C-alpha cells in the first residue's frame, strides 16, 4: 500500500533537489556567460590568435646602369630553448632517421654546420638551464640554416635576421656607406635612410589545433612597407677603375690618400667618385682608420693650389679686364702692396719674363696671377668664387660634407686677397673643384652636382629627383676662352707629355699646393690635375688628387693617373677622337 503522504514528501524533495541543481547551473551559467564573459573570451582568443610580423625589405642602392651596390638579404639567427635541453639524450635526424643521440653529438653537429665552437654552444645552453631563449649563432646564410633545420633537433629554433650585403665590395664603398647590424652608420645608407628604410608590418590570425591558419581569420594591423631603390649617377665599372688607379699610384707615390672624380659636364652628374684608401662595407674591420670610411672628396677640404687658377682667369675674362693675350711682365719676386717681409713666389726661380695671360696660366705663375687679379676688386673676385660654388656645400649634401672656406671680405688680408686666386689661403673639396671645372666646360653654367638621381619607391614612383636648374657664373665666351687657355696648358705645360692622348684634345690644369700644418706651410704637398675632355666640346670633368706623396712632390705625380682615367672615360663613354685643332694662343710677347 502506498502512503500518499510519503509520496508527496518524496515528490517535494525531488522538486527541491531539481530546483537546487538547476539553480546551481544557472548561477554558474550567469557567472561564465555574463560576469566573466569578457576575460574568458580574451583568454580563449589569446590561445587561438597568433601574432605575426611581416617584414618589409630595405631598398637596394644601384648605380646608373642598375648594378647593385647594396642589397638586402635574409640571414637567420639560430636560437635554442635551454629549458628543453636534456643533457644526456636528444632527438636528432641522422642518416635520414629520427633517432636519439647523446646531446653532445647534437651540439657537435650544429657546431660543424655553423662553424662555431661546440664548447661555446654548450656553455650557452647550460648557462641558464631555465631560460627559454638563447642565441646559438647569428646571421647564418640560407644554406646553413637549411642544414640546421634538417637536423630536426626539438629545442633548436630560428629567427629571421634581415641583413645587408655589398656585392661589389669596396667599389663605391666610400659613397654607399655601411649598415653593419641594425642601423645605418655611414654614407648614403645613413644619409638616404628615409628612402631606403622599410617598415615591418604586423597581423594576427587564428590557428587551429595543429597550427593551421583558420580561413578568413587574418587581421592585418599594419601593412609592411618595402624601402625604395636608391638610384645613383655613378658607373660602377668606371668607379672601380678610378679606385684601381688611385690604389696603384697612391701606393707607388707613398701618398697618404688620394681621390678622383669624374663629372658629366652637361648636367653635373657624378660618374665616379673614388677614394683611396677606402672601405669594403662587407668588412669594415679591414679598414681600421675611420678617416677612410667616407668620401674625402666631400668631407676633406684642402688648399687646392694652382688648379684654382682657371676660376680666377674665367672671372677676369668675364669681367672684361683681361684677354688671353694681355701682356704681363712677371718679376721673380712679388711684394707690391704686401706687408713687410711677405712675398709671393713662383715655383721656379726666374727674372722678369714677358708672358701673356695664357702664358701665366700655362706656366702656372703665381706672381702673374696675382698681378692680373689686381685688375678686379676683391669684392667682385670674392663674388665670382662664391658663384663657382666655393664656401658652400654642393647640391649633393653628402654626409659630413664640408663647404671649405674662402675668408669673408672683411677678414681677407692683403696677402690672402691675392693668394686665394691661386688656391692658397682658402680651401675647397675635390667636389667643389670638380663642380668648378664642370661650370667652365658647360659654357659658364653651373649645374647642381648630383650623386643621387632619385629614389624609386616600392610602387614605382620616383621621388627625390634632384634639381636640374643651372646658374650662370661666367659668360659663355669667358668659359670657352678659359678652356682654350687650359688646352694650351695641356699641350705646352709641364706635364703635357704625360697627359696627352693621341687623337684627343684635352684641357687641363695642374696644382701643387703647400700643406699648412699648425699655421706653417710644410714641405708636404697636395698634388692634383684637373681637366676637361674633349676640349673642343667638353663632356666630362676629371679631378685627380694625391695628398702628401713621398716619392714625387710635384703635380707630375698625379699626371699618369689623370691620363689613365681620361682614357678610361673615353672608352666607357665612347668619346670619338677630337675634331679641329688646338687654338693658337701666344704665351709670350
Amino acid at each position, binding site marked *: 500500500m502506498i502512503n500518499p503522504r510519503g509520496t508527496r514528501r518524496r515528490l517535494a524533495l525531488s522538486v527541491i533537489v531539481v530546483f537546487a541543481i538547476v539553480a546551481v547551473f544557472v548561477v554558474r551559467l550567469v557567472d561564465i556567460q555574463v560576469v566573466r564573459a569578457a576575460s574568458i573570451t580574451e583568454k580563449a582568443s589569446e590561445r587561438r590568435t597568433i601574432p605575426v610580423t611581416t617584414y618589409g625589405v630595405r631598398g637596394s642602392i644601384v648605380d646608373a646602369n642598375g648594378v647593385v651596390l647594396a642589397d638586402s638579404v635574409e640571414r637567420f639567427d639560430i636560437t635554442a630553448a635551454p629549458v628543453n635541453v636534456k643533457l644526456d639524450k636528444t632527438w636528432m635526424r641522422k642518416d635520414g632517421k629520427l633517432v636519439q643521440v647523446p646531446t653532445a653529438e647534437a651540439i657537435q653537429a650544429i657546431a660543424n654546420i655553423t662553424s662555431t665552437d661546440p664548447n661555446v654552444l654548450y656553455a650557452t645552453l647550460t648557462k641558464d638551464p631555465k631560460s627559454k631563449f638563447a642565441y646559438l649563432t647569428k646571421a647564418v646564410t*640560407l644554406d646553413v640554416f637549411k642544414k640546421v633545420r634538417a637536423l630536426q633537433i626539438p629545442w633548436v629554433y630560428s629567427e629571421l635576421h634581415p641583413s645587408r650585403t655589398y656585392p*661589389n665590395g669596396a667599389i663605391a664603398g666610400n659613397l654607399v656607406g655601411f649598415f653593419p647590424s641594425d642601423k645605418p652608420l655611414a654614407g648614403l645608407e645613413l644619409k638616404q635612410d628615409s628612402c631606403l628604410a622599410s617598415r615591418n608590418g604586423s597581423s594576427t590570425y587564428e590557428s587551429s589545433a595543429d597550427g593551421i591558419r583558420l580561413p578568413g581569420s587574418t587581421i592585418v594591423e599594419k601593412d609592411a612597407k618595402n624601402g625604395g631603390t636608391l638610384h645613383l649617377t655613378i658607373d660602377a665599372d668606371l668607379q672601380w677603375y678610378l679606385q*684601381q688607379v688611385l690604389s696603384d699610384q697612391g701606393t707607388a707615390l707613398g701618398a697618404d690618400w688620394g681621390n678622383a672624380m669624374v663629372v658629366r659636364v652637361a648636367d653635373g652628374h657624378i660618374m665616379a667618385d673614388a677614394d683611396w684608401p677606402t672601405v669594403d662595407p662587407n668588412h669594415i674591420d679591414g679598414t681600421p682608420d675611420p678617416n677612410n670610411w667616407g668620401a674625402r672628396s666631400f668631407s676633406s677640404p684642402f688648399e687646392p693650389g694652382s688648379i684654382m687658377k682657371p676660376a680666377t682667369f674665367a672671372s677676369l675674362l668675364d669681367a672684361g679686364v683681361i684677354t688671353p693675350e694681355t701682356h704681363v711682365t712677371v718679376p721673380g719676386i712679388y711684394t707690391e702692396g704686401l706687408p713687410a717681409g711677405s712675398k709671393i713666389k713662383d715655383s721656379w726661380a726666374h727674372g722678369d719674363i714677358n708672358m701673356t695671360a695664357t702664358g701665366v696660366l700655362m706656366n702656372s705663375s703665381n706672381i702673374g696671377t696675382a698681378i692680373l687679379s689686381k685688375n678686379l676688386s676683391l669684392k667682385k673676385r670674392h663674388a665670382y668664387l662664391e658663384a663657382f660654388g666655393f664656401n658652400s656645400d654642393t647640391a649633393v649634401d653628402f654626409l659630413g660634407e664640408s663647404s671649405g672656406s674662402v675668408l669673408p671680405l672683411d677678414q681677407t688680408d692683403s696677402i690672402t686677397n691675392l693668394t686665394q686666386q691661386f688656391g692658397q689661403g682658402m680651401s675647397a673639396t675635390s667636389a667643389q673643384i670638380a663642380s668648378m671645372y664642370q661650370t667652365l666646360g658647360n659654357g659658364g653654367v653651373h649645374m647642381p652636382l648630383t650623386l643621387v638621381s632619385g629614389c624609386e619607391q616600392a610602387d614605382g614612383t620616383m621621388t627625390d629627383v634632384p634639381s636640374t636648374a643651372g646658374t650662370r657664373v661666367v659668360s659663355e665666351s669667358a668659359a670657352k676662352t678659359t678652356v682654350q687657355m687650359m688646352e694650351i696648358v695641356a699641350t705646352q705645360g709641364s706635364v703635357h707629355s704625360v697627359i696627352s692622348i693621341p687623337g684627343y684634345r684635352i684641357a687641363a690644369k695642374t696644382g701643387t699646393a703647400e700643406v699648412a700644418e699648425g699655421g706653417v706651410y710644410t714641405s708636404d704637398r697636395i698634388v692634383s690635375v684637373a681637366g676637361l675632355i674633349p676640349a673642343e666640346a667638353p663632356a666630362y670633368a676629371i679631378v685627380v688628387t694625391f695628398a702628401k706623396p713621398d716619392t714625387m712632390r710635384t703635380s707630375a705625380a698625379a699626371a699618369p693617373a689623370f691620363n689613365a682615367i681620361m682614357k678610361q672615360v673615353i672608352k666607357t663613354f665612347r668619346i670619338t677622337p677630337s675634331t679641329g685643332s688646338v687654338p693658337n694662343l701666344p704665351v709670350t710677347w
Partner: protein
Amino acid sequence: MTTYGNTALAPRPAPASTPRTRPHIEVAPTRAQRRARPRLVPAIVTVAGIGVVLLAHLLLSIVLADGAYQISALQTEQRDLLRDQQALSERLETLGSTQNLIANASALGMVASGNPLFLNADTGTVSGSASAPGAGLAGWKNLVGNSLLDGSTVIDPAAIAAAKAAENASTETGTSVEGASVVNTTPGTIPSPQTH
C-alpha cells in the same frame, strides 16, 4: 472522415437515405484552417532542404578547411622558393661583381686594351692611334677588395688547360685564319664588340 463507431453521437440518417434533400453542405474551412492541415510534400521538401543545407555547409567547411591547409602549404612553399631565389640572386650579384670578372678574365689570360680606337662603319676607317694592350696603369692585378670573394669562384687553371688542349686538338686543321686577320687590323688590341 467518418463517424463510424462514434457511439457517443446520435445516429444520423445516412445522406443516401434522404434523397432530394438539400445538397450536402459542409462548413468550409477557413484559410487558416486549410493551411493548418499537415501537408506531406512541403514537409518533405523542407526537411530535405534543411538536410541539403546542412550537408552543403559541411562540405563547404571541409573544402574550406582543405583550402586552408593548401594555402598554408603553398605559402610555406612560396616563402622557401622566395628565399632560394634571393639566395641565388645574391650569389649572382657576387659572381657578377667587377672583382670576380677581373679575376676570371685574368685567369683566362685576358688583358685590357690600350688606347681607344673607333671603327667608322660607314667609311670603314679606324680612328685613334693604337698602343700596346694593358697600357693602363696598375697592371691587371685587382687592387679593389671584395671580402665576399674567397677565390673559389675563379676558373680552375686545370680546367683552362684542358679546354685549351681540346681546342688545339680540334683546330689542328687550321681554320683560325679569320681570327688572325682581326688581330692584324688593330695590332695589340683585343677586338671588342661595338654594341650599344
